[in-house]
């Protein structure tokens, strides 16, 4: 059996729900209380792919920064994938997203990047799609850590990308 271990860093502004996505995926739990993340917390989840590959996903839930370059660069070292999370109810968390993605692609050209708008439970999807189009934001997933909507799909997609 092939065994792989890959590092996935969750990045993005504070309060966007990185820790909630992390907890929803790792423990299938959610709390409405906001607790800011200081530094980084790391957990792993082992999944077996359809082709039999055992993938250990090591998730780094990093503290939020409006600008990635202001964060601790060591947290991003050796990342195989990034989940860039923004809050669909707060324009400030995605207004500069394209600059942030350019930074990631420049410094981590081999890494997979998934752009995720979280808190889908807070507003109608139609409204969100319109607003994001207006702001020229391209995203891969719209999720709700609260309801779990599209969280499994997001990480399953990353897992496939990391093993193919």
């Amino acid at each position, binding site marked *: 059996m092939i065994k792989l271990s890959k590092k996935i860093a969750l990045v993005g502004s*504070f309060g966007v729900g990185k820790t909630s996505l992390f907890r929803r995926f790792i423990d299938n739990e959610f709390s409405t209380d*906001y607790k800011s993340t200081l530094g*980084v917390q*790391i957990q792993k989840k082992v999944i077996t792919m359809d082709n039999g590959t055992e993938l250990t996903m090591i998730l780094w839930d990093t503290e939020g920064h409006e600008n990635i370059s202001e964060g*601790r660069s060591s947290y991003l070292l050796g990342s195989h994938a990034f989940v860039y999370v923004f809050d669909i109810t*707060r324009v400030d968390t995605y207004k500069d997203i394209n600059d942030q993605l350019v930074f990631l692609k420049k410094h981590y050209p081999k890494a997979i990047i998934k752009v995720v708008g979280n808190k889908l439970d807070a507003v109608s999807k139609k409204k969100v799609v319109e607003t994001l189009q207006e702001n020229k934001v391209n995203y891969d997933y719209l999720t709700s850590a609260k309801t779990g909507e599209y969280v499994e799909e997001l990480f399953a997609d990353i897992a496939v990308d990391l093993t193919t």
Partner: protein
Amino acid sequence: MENENQKKFYKKVQLVTVDDSGKIIYSDANLFKWKEGESIYEAHPFFSIIDSLKDEDHAKEHEFTFPCVHLNEDDNSQRICDITFTICLGETNIVIFDYTQAYVELNKISQERNESIIKAQELEFTNRLLIEKENFKNDFIASINHELTTPLTSIKGFLELLEKTKLDYEQEELIKIIRTESDHLQNIFGDMFDISRIESGGFKLEKEPFDLKELFETIVNSNRGPIENQALDFITEIDGKLNTELVGDKTRLYQIISNLLNNALKYTDEGFIKFSIERLGGKNKRQQVAIVIEDSGIGISDEDKQAVFEPFSQLNPNIKGSGLGLNIVRSLVSLMDGEIDLDSKLGEGSKFTIRLGLKNASDENSEEEKGNYILPEGEKFRILIVENQLNTQYLILKILLAQGNFFVDAVSSAEAAIRAIENRNYQLIISDIKLEEMSGFQLAQRVRNHYGDKAIKDLPILGISALRAPNITNKAIASGMDAFLSKPFSEKQLLQKVNRLLYLGLSN
């Protein structure tokens, strides 16, 4: 000899050495009880980072620091640590500094800061959504209003013409019913639109000279019939000390008083309705007045006194109305910087008192300022109507031709209007705003900007529309139109605007 501080320091630091495969070859176990021989990768997933830090040049020493990392053992006790890796010749020396206490303190500040920023940003978003919803609602109301008002314009206009024909008694009575119902319909549309405009902040009061006594008499005359038909006494009083030549929005003042009288009529079965205007005082150019509408109706309980001013509130659901009347009254009085008081007792009646400061008009107001424009006798004027609603076009045509001093042409599009004004001399254009392809606004812009010929360039333009967009009058003026008239309009209103523009055109 170690002092106490040094002992404390050692308790907060752990040294670990691992070999190339990740096996722990040394650990002082000060913080975490990892044992020699175990894999560091099993100790915590964080340490899997070591592999990606290793360089091909094994002999070269590399150092990496990871601040503020959350590490925990099996018992779930968590420490927040700074961790340094020194990698050389396949071995990795790990130094773990436990700064949990300091970081927890620091996190409190960060938590507070983040919470307040998040709340502010979420509020901003919610506010934006609310504004969008409100705008959508207002646009919807404006649009539906347009769709409903256009046919109503035709109904009321033709009714007015029909009333002037020879009718027998039964026909007259039937027409009265149609008029009452279409007036009621118009009032409901008007109320809905007024509320939506007031709520959106797009409502502007007019400033025009008017005679308060005339307004008083108009209101009395139009309400006397309905009130006395219900066997109620209609008591009216106007203070003789009042200066009645004022400046303000007489249409809205009329609306306020009519709404209150209408309300009194709905809830009074016997006794009286009293309408009075009293001078309270005032200096120089401003006069304080009290407008009082009192009735001997069912009255309002103390609990309902505030609720009656809320939208869609009706004390008796069996009584016909939109439930918006008193809400509009309160909003309009507030826009006029006035106050409204309600004094009422259940079963004894109600008394609404409005206190307003109204501006006195100057004594030099001319006939023109009062809205009376008299055109030279015997002179004929050629007017072009641009209207794609054939019923409205026909209605205007009929009204104008009946005056005897107008030649009238009618077209259905702005393009046709351009061809007409280039080929014939007109003294006035009456144009609808919502035309196919080129709008009335665009037509006005073109007339003002594309012609060297003064007779065309300065041609007076009267805009008409059933559109209820906020500031539509201002938009019409900004496009180059000289005046604007909302549909539905009466014969008198149309002729007043037409005469004014022709009169001013002659003066220029």
